[in-house]
């Protein structure tokens, strides 16, 4: 069934179809509509789940950790400072190998207080052990919630589904909402292997000495590495069932491209339009969309960029003292590759400033006119 809905509600429908059993939430703009709609679903019986209305995001994550540990499929959503407040519990959820799914609506971190989109909130959580998927459209947000539970429950690591504030969260788009029976066949009920069971008591997350800790983290890292292949399989299977296949990255008009834009999130849609325009003009440009950020799909990125002469990475985020975070990852992926494209790292659109087709055109122009790789970030559209 196709509906015209906003990104936040696309996430809510995804959670309903995934039959989450426990949802804990705390309101924060611009995420709130996700859990408002889920609260209604729980209240009117459209979703058979317990909705826990906690008093902070720290408690949100602790509650879904408890629910997941007790064997339930658990979901929450947050943004920005809410995600920041969860930080220590994010480590707990991932280290605890719990297949929680969370939507994070990318919102700028203060100060200055700002509710508009930027990716620094989620990217700052990159070392917590959560998988991260960046969505381009409302449809992708819905689809990634359903896939997210399947991936998380296969590799036993939590999944963060990331969508841009307002550009997706509050923007209406046509979205195909799959039927429940098909989703049920794609995503069977969660069958936890390790759980709190009074008939088979075990202790979880207690004291671990140096004798064992490192092995636990090594296993976690192996699970992360496995997640790349699992995501590809789940994305392909999703394509077979629902007609919309997904991969860890997406290559758009990349064949024969001399300049390749690397984007994530909704900027990708804008970049597609610009690539089409430049291609129509005979220019050899293409696009690499990074859907998965953690685990970082090194091989897929390297393979996609193997033919490019120049790579322009578009970062709507900033690691102060370093630069754009996707750019750092792409550089690291290219290290040691037989072919080394010239890389330009662009910072743009911080604090929710619009990134327009003109902005993307300026980025391509810059890349076209320069031949020496830039080590320092190139800040676009910064006022004097």
């Amino acid at each position, binding site marked *: 069934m196709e509906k015209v809905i906003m990104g936040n509600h696309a996430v809510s429908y995804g959670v309903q179809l995934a039959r989450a*059993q*426990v949802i*804990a939430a705390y309101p924060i703009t611009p995420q709130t509509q996700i859990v408002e709609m889920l609260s209604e679903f729980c209240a009117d019986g459209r979703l058979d*789940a*317990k909705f*826990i*209305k*906690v*008093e*902070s995001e*720290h*408690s*949100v994550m*602790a*509650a*879904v*950790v*408890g*629910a*997941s*540990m*007790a*064997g*339930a499929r*658990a979901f929450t959503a947050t943004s920005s400072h809410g995600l920041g407040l969860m930080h*220590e*519990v994010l480590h*707990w959820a991932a280290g605890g190998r719990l297949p929680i799914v969370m939507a994070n609506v990318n919102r700028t971190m203060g100060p200055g207080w700002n509710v508009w989109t930027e990716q620094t909130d989620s990217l700052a959580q990159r070392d917590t052990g959560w998988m991260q998927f960046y969505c381009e459209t409302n449809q992708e947000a819905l689809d990634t919630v359903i896939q997210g539970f399947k991936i998380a429950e296969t590799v036993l690591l939590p999944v963060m589904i990331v969508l841009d504030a307002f550009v997706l969260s509050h923007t209406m788009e046509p979205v195909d909402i799959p039927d429940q029976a098909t989703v049920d066949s794609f995503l069977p009920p969660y069958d936890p292997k390790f*759980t*709190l*069971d*009074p008939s088979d*008591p*075990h*202790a*979880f*997350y*207690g*004291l*671990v*000495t140096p004798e*064992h800790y490192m092995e636990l983290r090594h296993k976690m890292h192996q699970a992360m590495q496995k997640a790349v292949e699992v995501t590809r399989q789940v994305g392909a299977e999703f394509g077979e069932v629902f007609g919309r296949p997904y991969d860890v990255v997406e290559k758009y008009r990349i064949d024969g491209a001399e300049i390749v834009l690397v984007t994530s999130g909704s900027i990708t849609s804008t970049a597609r339009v610009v690539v089409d325009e430049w291609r129509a003009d005979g220019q050899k440009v293409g696009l690499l969309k990074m859907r998965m950020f953690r685990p970082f799909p090194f091989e897929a990125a390297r393979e996609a960029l193997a033919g490019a002469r120049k790579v322009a990475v578009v970062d709507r985020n900033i690691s102060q003292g370093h630069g754009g975070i996707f750019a750092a990852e792409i550089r690291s992926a290219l290290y040691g590759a037989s072919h080394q494209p010239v890389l330009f790292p662009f910072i743009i659109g911080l604090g929710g400033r619009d990134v327009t087709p003109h902005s993307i055109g300026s980025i391509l122009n810059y890349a076209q006119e320069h031949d020496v790789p830039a080590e320092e970030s190139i800040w676009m559209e910064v006022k004097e």
Partner: protein
Amino acid sequence: MSYDVPDQELMTPGHVACPGCGAPMAARYALKALGDNTVLIIIASCWSIIAGPFPYSAVNVPLLHSLFATGGSVASGVKAGLEARGLKDTTVMTLAGDGGTFDIGIQALSAAVERNEDFIYMCYDNEAYMNTGIQRSSATPWGAWTTTTPVKHPKEQPKKDMVAIMAAHRIPYTATATVAYPEDLIRKVKKAKSIRGSKFLHVLSPCPSGWKSEPAQSVFLSRLAVQSCIFPLYEVEHGEEYSITVWPRKKVPVEEYLRLQGRFAHLKPQDVQYIQDNVDREWDKLVAKAKATGQQVPD
């Protein structure tokens, strides 16, 4: 009063608490009362150590160790998750220290009991951050030495009244207990188990290394705390019905309790008198609340 102490042992030998620690005793009695259809949540505290290192466990029920500030929140999730799996009769009990309860965890605890989540929260109160090496908490009593309230500047504030805070949430059941009165403690845990909604149990837990007391005297100190009325045993139902469950045979001067603990060794006679005056006033207030509920004061 019933003297029915169940035989079932759900705490195993081999825990790693210090000699004379009140915390494993409190947990042992509580688990006897709860039985094996229980999930125990341990909040970062001395019990993080007491339960034993991976791959061992000192309890024979499922144990979930969780972060310092999550005593109320993680229990809410565990209860919801168990119910989603159809385990509706399993009791969830959080066991946390005073730091995790009075300080860093009070927000999540207040929220969980305000929602009247169906769980038991047991605070074992050793009146300071003992696991990190004896730093003051808001449960540390007035005048006590800790490493952050040194003898030249002992704690100037009274102990936070956690039972009053919990009672102010009008939860179904709040009670105090000590390991000197196991039959009273077990009865209260059983009662808590029988009630749906939020239950808060505040257990005084002597800490020989932090209190600078003799390990062999922990139970005796717990008894003196009750008999001197510095830690009375009572329960509060729905935030307003108070009843004292153990009346002191003869009110013991609080000095007898204080002088067995090195943390109070620096106190001058007027300091002891100040504490005595406060204990007397608080006890009178408690007796008045119990009378207002209709409880008869024994002769």
